């Protein structure tokens, strides 16, 4: 499978879909881990374990999708983890006090979009570096969440709301269905809309993009809004799954999202990236967590293994791209 992709890669005519090449860096460890683990532990390849891995990966996948769009423009969104907590608290509060699930989700998504828009406007119009702006909103959102909750968790009793995080539809967990839909929409935006192409253009060469008539500011702003909305969806799934909203939730989750994106072949320098890769990247990280427990590996090694997998995948990916570039030249 990997090889046929590589071949396609070299025939520019067929490079229509954007997931055509960057995702190999996540696909290789994914396949290797799947094969190795299915031999190593009899429980690994059971339906229930696979579904449980996917359910655990869901929040990271959705956040990673948002992060990928931001990374494609050469930016970063550090506010994701805090925003997750804020959205979770807002929707938990609304669903508990009004009982309306629709209202809770709507409010959550509006909060996510608003914070995303704030990030986007400041980054694109005031020329504040994304790292600094989203670092500020990271603190602002976390602080706001603590002010709202006064540090005590909000328990969710509404069982239909909890279904979003814990239920299934036709045997597939709802969070998994949600992340698949989010990925499909993300792929659609990236491959079939002008926005997708503009985002990549802005990321690879902002000046060239501006000179060719692309509204660089507006397109840069969009990615932060997309990120905010994705985080909002992830936040709703997160609190629905746990049945409680904590002010301290989601700390350092933005780094998990960066890891998933980078593992999936999205370049932190911008201009390149994919959706399928991010999905697989997040699943790889979830599989490592699962394997640590299944194989009874000492926990002290978990972060080292994750770090090593990301590093190797990225090195291999960069090498592969360099070789491909040489051949084209």
């Amino acid at each position: 499978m990997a090889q046929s992709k590589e071949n396609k890669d070299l025939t520019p005519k067929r490079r229509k879909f954007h997931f055509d090449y960057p995702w190999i860096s996540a696909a290789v460890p994914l396949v290797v881990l799947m094969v190795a683990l299915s031999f190593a532990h009899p429980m690994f390849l059971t339906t229930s374990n696979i579904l449980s891995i996917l359910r655990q990966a869901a929040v990271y996948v959705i956040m990673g999708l948002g992060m990928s769009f931001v990374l494609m423009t050469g930016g970063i969104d550090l506010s994701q983890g805090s925003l997750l907590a804020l959205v979770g608290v807002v929707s938990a509060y609304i669903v508990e006090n009004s009982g309306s699930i629709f209202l809770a989700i709507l409010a959550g998504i509006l909060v996510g979009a608003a914070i995303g828009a704030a990030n986007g406007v400041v980054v694109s119009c005031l020329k504040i570096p994304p790292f600094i702006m989203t670092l500020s909103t990271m603190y602002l959102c976390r602080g706001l969440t603590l002010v709202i909750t006064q540090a005590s968790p909000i328990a969710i009793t509404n069982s239909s709301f909890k279904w979003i995080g814990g239920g299934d539809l036709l045997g597939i967990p709802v969070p998994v269905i949600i992340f698949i839909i989010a990925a499909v929409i993300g792929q659609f935006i990236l491959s079939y809309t002008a926005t997708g192409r503009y985002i990549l253009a802005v990321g690879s060469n902002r000046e060239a993009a501006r000179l060719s008539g692309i509204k660089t500011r507006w397109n840069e702003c969009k990615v932060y809004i997309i990120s905010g909305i994705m985080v909002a969806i992830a936040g709703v799934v997160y609190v629905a799954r746990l049945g409680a909203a904590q002010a301290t939730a989601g700390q350092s989750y933005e780094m998990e999202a960066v890891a998933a994106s980078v593992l999936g072949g999205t370049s932190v320098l911008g201009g390149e990236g994919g959706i399928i890769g991010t999905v697989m990247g997040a699943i790889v990280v979830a599989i490592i967590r699962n394997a640590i427990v299944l194989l009874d590996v000492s926990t002290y090694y978990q972060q080292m293994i994750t770090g090593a997998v990301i590093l190797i995948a990225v090195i291999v990916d960069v090498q592969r791209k360099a070789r491909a570039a040489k051949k084209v030249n």
Partner: protein
Amino acid sequence: MKRWIALLLTLAMCFALTACGGKTTEAPSNDEQPAQTDAAGKTITIALLPKTLSNPYFVAMQKFAEAAAASLSNDEYTVEIVCSAPPSEDGVNEQITMFESYLEKGVDGVLIVPCGTAEVVDTIKKANEKNVPVICLDTNADEGAEVAAFIGTNNYDGGFLAGQWTAENIDGQVAIITGTLGNQCHTDRNNGYIDGLEGASNVELVGDIQPCNGDQGTAMGIAENLLTAYPDLKCIYVTSDTGAMGAATAVQATGRDVKVIGFDGSPAGAQSIIDGGMTATVAQTPGVMAEEGVKALYEMIINGTAAEDMYTPCSMVTAENANDYLDWH
């Protein structure tokens, strides 16, 4: 022009900050004047430095300390609590800075829950030089400086209690999820638990100790992996209630009969026991710690009575007595 706007905005921010900080800045400035005795009597200012205020456990400490201060105040002396804390429990450096600034401002006594047990020693030495008595609550500082007293849970004994309860009530496999790796409180809770299980042939400890870093979502993921890895698992011991609630959600989703034991005895944990989530928890008493701490400092400052180390009691909370633990003690 732009610069002026920026300057104005910064000024506005500073004003806003001082407005927010009104409560905390007011207190120390109050005590500076009453340092010289006036007609209304003396004010004794006690600084409370919990690990963070984003955890309800420490918020309870603050409330109980304030209540104790109010009840100790009389015509002759007014006892006042000033309190600040880092945003999260690992804010070692921030906490030391706060500690130092309280010493600069001049307080009569300090109650601290050290974020870093080794790092705090030097600052306690500074307090010793200024003859400001320091009492450690909940977590003791390392050797090297003069701590007037330690008042807190014996985490080892608490873990031991949970271990004994497990040995009496569980037959089969048991797994442990801890807070943060390398945190002494959690290590003691693990060691106590393991020693409490000793000699019980009906219980088998499986897997390595997994860290959830106090994150409910992470704890839930680990619990799901444990449930897959060990189909005969009968019990999960989590060294915090926040984590235990996540594990309980995972257990409930599978519908298996796996008992979940927490640690803290938080109101949310007690509620979870009543709702059939968690099975039991080890109750700590942050309120008693704070009360006793304030009283001990008061005695030291007014009467010169030496304070003594004190272990606040731990108790097992189960469905039978969970109703009594819906508030912190």
